């Protein structure tokens, strides 16, 4: 039986990818950011997941305004890093897990989540930067990845509550998959940032850390936070944090299990325009 063993939460700032790709990780500006992931890389290496179910958002890369899916699951065998206007990141292609992805799609749609199934798409920094942060710079990514894209660009975006419920459905789906698999679920994006208008550069350290506290200790209550709070308190792009609730909803304690172990927690300001938050939760 496939099992979700852990969840990982992390910002996916494009400048982090650029810093990594251009060899700037030891510069004074970037060193503290990457230091926050030293533990994570060792941890990931020990965990050896077979599959990462990676929740992220597309940033006007694979999806233009012609087509805006609220939730899209990638069921293809392979996804190429996208050219976001600077050329594709020099990272390996993403190898999918079509069988598990199709199984999850089947189960979750029967659970009344109206997914869009995607068999061809390129993946942008939202997906590849978290992989780089957790896996470093390997020749090939060490595991299969199922891309799961959430619309957080055009409003209305799905509510935190909807995301949290979806995470629960994903857990049911994974645990009904026959083959023995070690599956992790990652929620990416956030933390506080705003990339537009005279309010650009907003950072709310207190709010972010309270979000991390509550994500660990009271995710159910946190999932009821309205969008308005995210935008007002954590910036217009802080809304990406709803995606973390998908990963959190898939953890064992939401389904009657024991509380997760906090394996790692990290917070740093800034990376480019953004506060970097990062959390690793293990199921016992």
């Amino acid at each position, binding site marked *: 039986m496939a099992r979700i063993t852990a969840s990982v939460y992390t910002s996916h700032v*494009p*400048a982090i990818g*650029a810093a990594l790709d251009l060899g700037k990780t030891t510069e004074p*500006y970037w060193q503290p950011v990457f230091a926050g992931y030293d533990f994570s890389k060792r941890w990931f290496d020990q965990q050896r997941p077979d599959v990462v179910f990676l929740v992220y958002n597309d*940033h*006007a*890369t694979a999806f*233009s*305004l*012609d087509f805006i899916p609220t939730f899209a699951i990638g069921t293809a065998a392979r996804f190429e890093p996208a*050219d*976001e*206007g*600077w050329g594709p990141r020099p990272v390996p292609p993403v190898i999918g897990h079509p069988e598990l992805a199709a199984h999850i799609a089947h189960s979750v749609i029967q659970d009344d989540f109206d997914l869009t199934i995607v068999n061809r798409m390129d993946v942008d920094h939202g997906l590849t930067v978290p992989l780089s942060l957790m896996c470093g710079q390997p020749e090939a990514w060490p595991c299969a990845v199922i891309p799961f894209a959430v619309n957080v*660009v*055009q*409003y*209305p975006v799905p509510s935190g509550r909807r995301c949290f419920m979806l995470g629960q459905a994903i857990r049911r789906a994974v645990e009904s998959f026959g083959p023995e698999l070690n599956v992790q679920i990652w929620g990416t994006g956030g933390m*506080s940032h*705003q*990339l*537009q*208008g*005279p*309010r*650009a*550069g*907003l*950072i*709310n*350290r207190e*709010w972010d850390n309270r979000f991390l506290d509550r994500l660990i200790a009271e995710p159910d209550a946190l999932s009821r936070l*309205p*969008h*308005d709070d995210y*935008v*007002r*308190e954590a910036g*217009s*792009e802080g809304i990406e944090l709803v995606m973390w609730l998908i990963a959190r909803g898939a953890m064992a304690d939401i389904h009657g299990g024991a509380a997760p172990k906090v394996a790692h927690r990290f917070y740093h*300001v*800034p990376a*480019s*325009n953004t*506060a970097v938050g990062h959390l690793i939760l293990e199921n016992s």
Partner: protein
Amino acid sequence: MALDKPYKDIPGTTIFDAEQSRKGYWLNQFCMSLMKADNRARFKANERAYLDEWPMTEAQKDAVLARDLNECIRLGGNIYFLAKIGATDGKSFQQMAGSMTGMTEDEYRNMMVAGGRSVEGNRRIGEDGDAQAHHQPQGQAGKKDQ
């Protein structure tokens, strides 16, 4: 429309909803076209001519030519789409974001290194934070033009 849009009273912030999206459809689709190297080259060779291939409003074209991102956003642009213009110009997200505040690159970068913009006074229109309309432009970059 009797929809729940509580986000209308946040200062210095435009939420990209269906209304903005409709307004900015062609502006944003023009931006998407810059993801292809060929189109970037054609745009750079003659910006006006390239823009004229798109059914954008004159105001949208002018805002793009002036690289006035605040105006682009007001006219329906979304930052992730507009970022393709920045990429074409070789600008980073930090440079683009900073350009909307009236700060110089250094001023904006220093603000971020110092912990970013505070939310105090910037939660609601009518408070007195630095993102409020009556404090624009915030830095030296904008002041030069005045």
